[in-house]
């Protein structure tokens, strides 16, 4: 088993969806799990043979680690910011690897088509050059992305948005959206992709919106609308696993983020839910 993912923390559920006194079945890295919430609210996870799994409850999510955690659960500093509306966007099962879902979350080029009328629009589909760096502790930092969005604020007013992206853990992605002209923060979002098995994931999102102009239901509804536009794309990608070897899929300049993400996974030695070689394609 892939030691990188095996020894990492993964979101496997959200506490709001788990009633006291009930159990919930899911899977992580191919291992069937039973999540139980006792009457006192405490959460426990066991494998099908009853062996307990390391678990924690944080940020409204239930986290599990099948091995020995190499790092603590990822920090969410935005939750400490005053007057921030934090919303869990729901859990969506996707018949695609977690890596494919993360890559899509980082992708600028599809906004004008898959999310036409919301996060992009023709003819403003050009992806301007942006910066990609390696984070000091490994991972990907992307800054300087500028995108026209026709309905980013749920008011049908087009605005120029600045995006930053960050990938600090293999299956967690972060972005921040600001209004380009004023620098005002619009949204911070996290995608925690739960690797159910190599070809399936559950996308868990956490949205952080400053102030209280939008209700939790509005934010959740918008997020689900957007994600359900992505789902059919993700489920029609072949292979289901993320190709991280060279010459397996053809990237362009606009895919700098994806190139850096795939390269980082390869460098880390991630093997689960990815493919390094296509049949007939030399590595």
């Amino acid at each position, binding site marked *: 088993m892939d030691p990188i993912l095996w020894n990492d923390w993964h979101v496997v559920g959200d506490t709001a969806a788990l009633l006291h006194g009930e159990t919930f079945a899911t899977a992580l890295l191919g291992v069937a799990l039973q999540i139980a919430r006792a009457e006192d609210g405490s959460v426990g996870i066991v494998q099908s043979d009853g062996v307990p799994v390391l678990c924690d409850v944080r940020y409204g999510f239930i986290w599990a680690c099948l091995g020995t955690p190499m790092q603590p659960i990822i920090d969410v500093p935005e939750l400490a910011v005053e007057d921030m509306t934090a919303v869990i966007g729901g859990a969506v099962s996707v018949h695609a690897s977690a890596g494919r879902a993360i890559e899509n979350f980082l992708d600028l080029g599809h906004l004008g088509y898959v999310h036409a009328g919301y996060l992009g629009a023709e003819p403003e589909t050009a992806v301007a050059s942006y910066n990609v760096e390696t984070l000091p502790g490994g991972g990907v930092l992307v800054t300087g992305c500028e995108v026209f969005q026709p309905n980013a604020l749920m008011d049908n007013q087009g605005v120029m948005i600045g995006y930053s992206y960050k990938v600090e853990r293999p299956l967690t992605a972060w972005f921040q959206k600001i209004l380009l002209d004023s620098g005002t923060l619009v949204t911070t979002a996290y995608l925690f992709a739960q690797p159910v098995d190599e070809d399936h994931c559950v996308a868990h999102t956490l949205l952080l919106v400053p102030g209280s102009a939008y209700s939790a239901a509005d934010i959740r509804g918008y997020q689900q609308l957007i994600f359900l536009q992505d789902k059919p*794309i993700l489920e029609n990608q*072949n292979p289901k696993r993320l190709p991280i070897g060279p010459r397996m899929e053809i990237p362009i300049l606009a895919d700098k983020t994806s190139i850096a993400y795939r390269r980082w996974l390869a460098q880390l030695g991630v093997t689960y839910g990815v493919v390094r070689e296509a049949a007939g394609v030399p590595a």
Partner: protein
Amino acid sequence: MIASIGWHPVAASSDLPTGHVYQTQLEGQALAVWRSAEGEVNVWEDRCPHRGVRFSIGVAVGNELQCQYHAWRFASGSGACTHIPAHPTQKPAAVIRATIFPVIERGGLVWTRVAEDHSEGTVPLVRDGVVMRALPVNRPAATVEAALLAAELTGATFFVQPLAEGQSVIRGIARDEASLRTLDSALERLRRQLEADHAVI
């Protein structure tokens, strides 16, 4: 029944209305089949070379197929990428192209071959007639071909499309419209028999 070597029908001409991308398989190879505005039929690997999305969820626009993910466009005939909206002023690199398969449209059916080692094969010369409803059968092509031969059905020429492991599609060209109902019923019985023989009880 005519056994064709290498070449198989994978769609009916009538499966390809303007704008539509028809999805099928041949010998396990996923295929996207579509007709350009000028009438040219294309059989492509059902996979965009950029991010692996099935072409068959995309759309045919004029003489190009547009991928549903990033709206890259690919030219009918050559499969060459013609437009990348993320970089609208640049000409796409020549290496960016769809994987294409040879096509012959004959007798109201679209024929192709995906196996390299059948280069000697040809598309049979079929008489014009009425293209029958395609009938999928959950049995291997060889089994279906043998059953069709044994059935000695008259009034039509049949072809078996080997879809994937253990799956086939029977396609046929009937001599006239009047015999369609009888032939279709006969094929249905054949399918039920073949699938029942194999059913695990």
